[in-house]
C-alpha cells in the first residue's frame, strides 16, 4: 500500500515537473538571468551606445549617490511611499468598516470604489494632470475663494532642511501625485479589508459585546488585531507599486521642476533610453530592486516560516 502510494506520488510529481519545467526555465532565463545581466551591466563602463563591458567597479553607483537628481528621487520615493501607503490603508479601512454596517446598496458602493482600479495608471495620470492643472480643473473652483494652489508645479519642500545638495523634506508637489495614486488604489485595500471583515465571525464580536465592550472597543480590541495580516499584504503590494511607480508620474507631472516629482523609474528610463547611459540605468534598476527587496524579503521569510 505504502509503496504504491509512493510510486503514484512520484508519477504525479513527474507530470507536474513536465508542466512546470517550461515556466521554470523561462523564469530562470528571463527573470533571474536578466537580473544578473543588469547587475553585471551596472558594474561595467557601458555608458554609450557602443558596448563596453569592461569592469568599472562601483563607479556608476557612486555617481548616482552624488547626483542631485538621484538624491531627489530617493527623497521623493520615501515620502511618496509613506504617504501613499498610509492614506490607502486608512481610507480603505474606514470605507470598508462603513460598508460593513450592512449598508443598503452595498454592492453599488463597492463597485464605485473599485472602478478606478479598472483604469491603468497612465489614464489616471492624464485625468489628474488636468484636474489639478494650476489654471484649469479644480483650481477654477478654488479661484472663486481666492485660493490658487499650485499642486504639482509647487517646488517648495515642506519642513525641509538642507542635507547635502538637496533639500530634505516633503515636496509639496508629491501630495498631488499621492491624491491621484490613492484615488486609483483605495478600492484595492477596501476590497481586501472588506473580505477580512467578512471573515471575522459575528460570534467573536458578539462575545466581546457580551463582555460589555463598546462598539469602539470591539473594533479596537477584536477586529483590528485580526485584520493585521491583511494590512501586511496591503502594505507589501502597495510598497512595491509605489517603489516602482513610473506610468502615473510620467503621464501626470513628468520629472517636475527641480525634480520634485521625479522617481527612480523615470530617471532609469531617461538615462537608459534617451541618454544611452546603459550602465547608469542598470545601476538605478538594481537599486530599485533592492528597495523593493527590503519590503518583500522579510515578508517572504515570514510566510516561509509560516509554511513550516
Amino acid at each position: 500500500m505504502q509503496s504504491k502510494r509512493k510510486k503514484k506520488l512520484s508519477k504525479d510529481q513527474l507530470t507536474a515537473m513536465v508542466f512546470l519545467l517550461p515556466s521554470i526555465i523561462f523564469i530562470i532565463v528571463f527573470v533571474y538571468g536578466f537580473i544578473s545581466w543588469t547587475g553585471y551591466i551596472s558594474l561595467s563602463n557601458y555608458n554609450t551606445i557602443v558596448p563596453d563591458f569592461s569592469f568599472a567597479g562601483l563607479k556608476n553607483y557612486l555617481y548616482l549617490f552624488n547626483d542631485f537628481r538621484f538624491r531627489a528621487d530617493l527623497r521623493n520615493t520615501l515620502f511618496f511611499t509613506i504617504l501613499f501607503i498610509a492614506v490607502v490603508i486608512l481610507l480603505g479601512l474606514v470605507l470598508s468598516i462603513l460598508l460593513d454596517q450592512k449598508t443598503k446598496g452595498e454592492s453599488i458602493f463597492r463597485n464605485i470604489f473599485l472602478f478606478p482600479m479598472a483604469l491603468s495608471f497612465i489614464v489616471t495620470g492624464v485625468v489628474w494632470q488636468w484636474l489639478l492643472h494650476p489654471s484649469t480643473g479644480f483650481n477654477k473652483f478654488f479661484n472663486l475663494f481666492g485660493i490658487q494652489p499650485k499642486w504639482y508645479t509647487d517646488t517648495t519642500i515642506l519642513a525641509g532642511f538642507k542635507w547635502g545638495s538637496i533639500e530634505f523634506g516633503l515636496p509639496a508637489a508629491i501630495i498631488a501625485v499621492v491624491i491621484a495614486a490613492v484615488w486609483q488604489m483605495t478600492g484595492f485595500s477596501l476590497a481586501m479589508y472588506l473580505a477580512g471583515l467578512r471573515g471575522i465571525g459575528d460570534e467573536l464580536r458578539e462575545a466581546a459585546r457580551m463582555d460589555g465592550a463598546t462598539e469602539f472597543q470591539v473594533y479596537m480590541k477584536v477586529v483590528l488585531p485580526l485584520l493585521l495580516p491583511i494590512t501586511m499584504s496591503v502594505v507589501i503590494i502597495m510598497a512595491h507599486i509605489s517603489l516602482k511607480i513610473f506610468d502615473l508620474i510620467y503621464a501626470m507631472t513628468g520629472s517636475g521642476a527641480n525634480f520634485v516629482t521625479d522617481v527612480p523609474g523615470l530617471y532609469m528610463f531617461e538615462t537608459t533610453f534617451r541618454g544611452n547611459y546603459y550602465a547608469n540605468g542598470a545601476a538605478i534598476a538594481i537599486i530599485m530592486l533592492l528597495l523593493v527587496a527590503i519590503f518583500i524579503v522579510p515578508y517572504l521569510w515570514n510566510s516561509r516560516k509560516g509554511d513550516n
Partner: protein
Amino acid sequence: MKKFFGLFVLLALALVVSACTSDSNQESTSDPGSTDKPKDTSADKGEESSVEIFSWWTGAGEEDGLLALISLFNELHPEIKIENAAVAGGAGTNAKAVLATRMQGNDPPSTFQVHGGEELNKSWVAADKMAPLNDLYEANGWMDKFPDALIEMVSNGDNIYSVPVNVHRGNVIFYNMEVFKEHGIEVPTTLDEFFAVADKLQAAGVVPLSLGDKESWEATQIFENVLAAELGRDDYLKLFAGEIDFTDARVVAAAEKFGEILDYVNEDHASRNWQDSAQLVAEGKAAMINMGDWAKGYFVNDLKLVTNEDFGYFAFPGTVGDFAVITDTFGLPKGIENVEATKQFLTVLGSVEGQDAFNPLKGSIPARVDADPSKYDAYGKDTIEDFKTANLFPSLAHGSAASEGFVTKANQAVNIFVTQRDVQNFVDALQNAAPDM
C-alpha cells in the same frame, strides 16, 4: 496524462507552423514580379523588394507628410513595397528606445529617422552601424544641392551617412500681432531690446514669454539661443567641439541672461507642454514664444490662425542672420538585405519632388536649396530664403550639437537651474558633462 502531453506538443507544433506560414505569406505578397521600371530594378531580385521606414511621425502634419512621401514613392517604384514602421511618442522618446533595441539586436529597419548631427554621429556612426552614402550623393549630384554646413552635420570625416529630408528652425520667436500692436511694441533684434520689450509687456499685465517646460527641452532651446547670441555662431560651434569651456565668461553671461529671461515666463510653465504654451500666445495671454517652426504648423493647422495677421515671427534676439538647424535625416544601416531598394527610397527622399511632397504638409522647409518655394506659405518662403543666406548652427536641444548623453545631462541641469537659478552650479554641471559631448 500521456494523451494530454501529446496534445500539448501538438499545440506547440501548430503554433510554430502557423508562425512560419504567416511569415512566408508576407514574403509572397511582397514579391512584385513586375519590372516595368527597368532602370531601377536591375538589382532587385524579389527579396529586395520592400523597404521598412522607421520614424516617429505619427502626429497630424508629420504623418500626412510621410504618407505623401510614401505615395509618391509608390508611384515612382510600384515594384517596391513600403512598410511604414512609425512608433508613436513625443519627439521620438519611444521610437528611439525601440530603435536602440533593434539596432543592438542586429535587426535594423531598412532606414530610420535620426536628427542630423551628433545624434547620428555620436551614436550610430560611432557604433559602426551605418553605411556611408557618398556614392548616392555623387550619383544624384547632391553635393551642391544641400548647404555645406548641412552636409557636414550628416558626415563623419569624409563619409556622408544620411540624407536630410527637412529643416526646422529653432531660433524663431512667434508673437501675437494683436498684443504687439495694442501695446505699441516693435520687434526686438537684440537681447537688450528684448528685455525692454518684456518689461513693457509685464507692466501691462501680459506674460512676455510663454514657456511650457514639462519636458526640459523647451527651456534648453531658449538657453541654446542665448548661447548663440552671446558667443556668436563660430564660438558656439567651438563650444560644442570642446574648444571652449563651459566656464568661459561668455557662457556664464549667457546663463545669467537665460535666468533673466526666465523671470518673464508664465508661472505655470512646469505644467505645460509646448502646445499648451503656444496656446497662451494664440489666446493673447502671452505675447511671445520661442519655439521651432512646428509651432507654425500648430497655429495654422490646429488653431486656424493666419500667418502675418494673427501671429508674426522674428529671429531670436541676438541671432539675426543665424539659423538653428534641426534636421530629420534618413540613413542606411549596415547589415540590411534590401540595400538597393532602400537606396531607391533615399533617392526619392533627397529629390526635389520628394522634399516638396513632404515638407509643405509637415510644416518644415526643404533641406535642398533648389526646392520650389511656391509650394510653401509665407513663413516657409521667408525661411527658405533665410536658410540659403544664414549662418547655420546645430541645435543642442534637438540632439544636433552634442551627443544624446550630453543632451540628457544638459536638460537635467536646465531643469534644476530653472528653479534654483544657481549660475555657478549650472555652468559646473555642463562642464562636468562636457566629456560626454
